[in-house]
């Protein structure tokens, strides 16, 4: 009962660095980037365009830490989406592994 009340009250709670959202509105990709800049998002109820790109969805967790979002995945079922709203800093080069 208490859990239902909390869920319906649209509350969110802080778990380490991750904000787990109890109830949020559907957001467009532009709104996600604006509201959660430079963060990893866990998105449910998402819609894709014809090119398999995220159009809109419901953000259920957001964090600066990718591992926290991977952990938050365990709390959800069905079709899910991970999205990063940031970009690799200009002074950083990412080197990917070689297959031998």
């Amino acid at each position, binding site marked *: 009962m208490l859990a239902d009340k909390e869920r319906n009250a649209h509350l969110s709670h802080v778990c380490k660095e991750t904000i787990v959202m109890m109830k949020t509105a559907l957001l467009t990709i532009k709104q996600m980037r604006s509201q959660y800049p430079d963060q990893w998002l866990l*998105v449910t109820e*998402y819609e*894709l365009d*014809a*090119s*398999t*790109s*995220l159009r809109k969805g419901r953000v259920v967790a957001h964090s600066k*830490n*990718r*591992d926290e979002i*991977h952990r938050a*995945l*365990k709390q959800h*079922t*069905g*079709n*899910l*989406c*991970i*999205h*990063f709203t*940031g*970009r*690799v800093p*200009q002074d*950083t*080069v*990412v*080197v*990917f*592994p*070689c*297959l*031998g």
Partner: protein
Amino acid sequence: MPRVTYDPTGSSIIVDFLLESPDGSSSLLIPVVLDTGASLTIVSTELLVRLGYDPATPLLQRQRIVTGSGIEYAPRITVRSATAIGQTVSNLEVLCHNLPPESGVDGLLGLNFLRHFKLTIRFRKGIVELVKER
């Protein structure tokens, strides 16, 4: 025509990649970097586990990977279906390996996916097109 736009001033081309679970009952959309220099597609191990795959199965073939910190042997699994830039490949072999969080991605879209299509990258405009060739 299936196409995506990306930030041409960025350091890499990042696209969304849709993976289906083994029984087709669920899916996961993740950001991956498009890499024409990679022979195989790579996806984070824990995300594949979350989807219902079992990279720990001893029967799986393992692929040698050379990283900055040494040599690793990563399992290769077959994903029921994978979709990017509007195109789908069934039974795609992927390598289970975690990329660093700083990369901003959860995987790497390699040639074993891309070679099924005609790939056009318009670097100045930041457009990637992927079409079936006749």
